[in-house]
């Protein structure tokens, strides 16, 4: 066997090794424990089309390792700048902050907060932080992308789920919607002010990474990929209506979807579109969305995130209306999944 034969043999073996991860799809199993939504979300496209469009982002399944045994520290110990982005979650009297600089390297934390088993998920390419009840299973990063967005899988049934539409793409849970919890995409300064006793995800993740660096760019200040009016991967639907990386607050139910541009909502405080009502919460710089149908109530801002409805004052997140789980996302990503979304 001469050199060239050996080189060709080696290359075939290397390509085989490289392709193994992409062809090895998770297998079958039973997972009655994974909590699902009572009603499935509306989808912008057929699930077969999603599967056809899904593509490898590079890593194999679990090549981006989720954090499965998270360690938390007190707020005073956290080495964070006031303007650093964090994902906040509050449940059952416990507050958690997941720094974006850690999440960008892992994308999923399988956690238990206030007695609830949740998966905190984050996709850096679409700026989406979404929480899902996970029951007794854990969620992992599949390495596949759909419209630049994270495709995750549950480790029991090995079903694949799209993050933004929270719906199964293949496997036992195809077409079924995960049970979502409300996460907040905000800054460390704002989250800490709202929840001084918050615990913070530690860099002691069980994995070795450079947690002082974001490979895509920066949020504090905004730079790199996060500020560019360009996207990296093909999209099923695209639009120039807004800057690609404009942050929108979207929501969907079983029939329809909506988005509000966050900066517009911050200016106007209350917006309505397509039977949805959105109110701005200034302390966390976020929005809450309610489904009101044709009977749009009169909601008046009182300042400091407080609103008057029917003669009573409520906080932005406590209006006595049908509240949906809001998703903050780059505009291009929301539009790619929900091109027919209502908007103001």
């Amino acid at each position: 066997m001469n050199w060239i034969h050996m080189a060709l043999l080696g290359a075939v073996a290397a390509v085989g090794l490289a392709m193994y991860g992409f062809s090895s799809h998770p297998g079958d199993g039973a997972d009655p424990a994974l909590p699902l939504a009572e009603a499935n979300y509306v989808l912008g496209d057929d699930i077969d089309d999603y599967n056809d469009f899904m593509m490898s982002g590079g890593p194999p399944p679990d090549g981006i390792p989720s954090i499965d045994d998270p360690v938390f520290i007190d707020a005073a110990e956290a080495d964070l700048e006031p303007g650093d982005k964090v994902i906040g979650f509050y449940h059952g009297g416990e507050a958690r902050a997941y720094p974006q600089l850690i999440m960008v390297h892992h994308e999923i934390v399988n956690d238990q907060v206030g007695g609830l088993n949740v998966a905190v998920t984050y996709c850096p390419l679409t700026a989406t932080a979404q929480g899902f009840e996970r029951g007794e299973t854990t969620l992992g990063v599949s390495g596949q992308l759909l419209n630049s967005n994270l495709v995750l899988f549950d480790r029991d049934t090995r079903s694949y789920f799209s993050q933004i539409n929270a719906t199964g793409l293949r496997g036992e849970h195809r077409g079924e919607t995960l049970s979502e919890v409300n996460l907040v995409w905000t800054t460390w300064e704002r989250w800490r002010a709202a929840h001084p006793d918050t615990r913070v995800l530690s860099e002691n993740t069980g994995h070795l990474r450079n947690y002082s660096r974001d490979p895509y760019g920066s949020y504090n200040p905004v730079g790199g990929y996060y500020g560019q009016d360009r996207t990296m991967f093909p999209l099923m639907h695209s639009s120039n209506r807004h800057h690609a990386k404009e942050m929108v607050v979207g929501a969907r139910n079983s029939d329809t979807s909506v988005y509000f541009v966050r900066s517009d909502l911050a200016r106007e405080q209350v917006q309505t579109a397509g039977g949805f009502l959105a109110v701005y919460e200034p302390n966390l710089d976020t929005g809450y969305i309610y489904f009101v149908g044709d009977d749009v109530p009169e909601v008046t801002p009182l300042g400091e995130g407080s609103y008057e409805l029917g003669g009573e004052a409520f906080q932005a997140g406590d209006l006595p209306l049908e509240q949906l789980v809001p998703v903050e996302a780059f505009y291009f990503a929301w539009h790619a999944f929900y091109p027919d979304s209502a908007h103001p």
Partner: protein
Amino acid sequence: MPTAVQTLASILRLPFYRRVVVVSGGVYLILFLIALQDISRGGRAFQFLTVPFSRMFERTGALTFEPIAQLTLPGLTILISPVNVLIGLGISLLVGLNLAITWLAFRQPRACRFNRSTGVLASLPALLAGGACCAPAIVLILGLQVSSLLMGVFQVLIPVSVVLLVITLKLILDRTNPELLASQEYRGTSPAAQ
């Protein structure tokens, strides 16, 4: 007729070409590890962390693997992934050898039975090997859009570049005359040597 290995040994007996291999291979290895982000900016205080050795075979990409040690210095973080380093060393050695014989072909075309421009073609696989490690980083920096076809190409760039590096090395070594190299005239460390 000497074998390619014998010819290579003859070339590497000359200190100048050994230096070309070591320097170009070393530079390539560092660039390779930077492109994989195993060497990156950022880091606050001195710290050395490890995880179990068994993690070294867990894949993070098509042909990239988990680090098992991390050295953090003020302003610099080095992740030590033995498999990445091994792959990088292999490609770096091939790149270094190709560049050394490219240099030989350019400076002393008679010894290689090539004209100069043909000899320089030997450096093309080395450039492709450069693309193999840097392409994803370049895409990210320039904000280019990546199709599924291009993602597929990225997955095989490293093995393809290794094959091309071996083939060009073999082809040029077969056309190199080590006896001419042995003469004082072809020890060529300066332009005057020709």
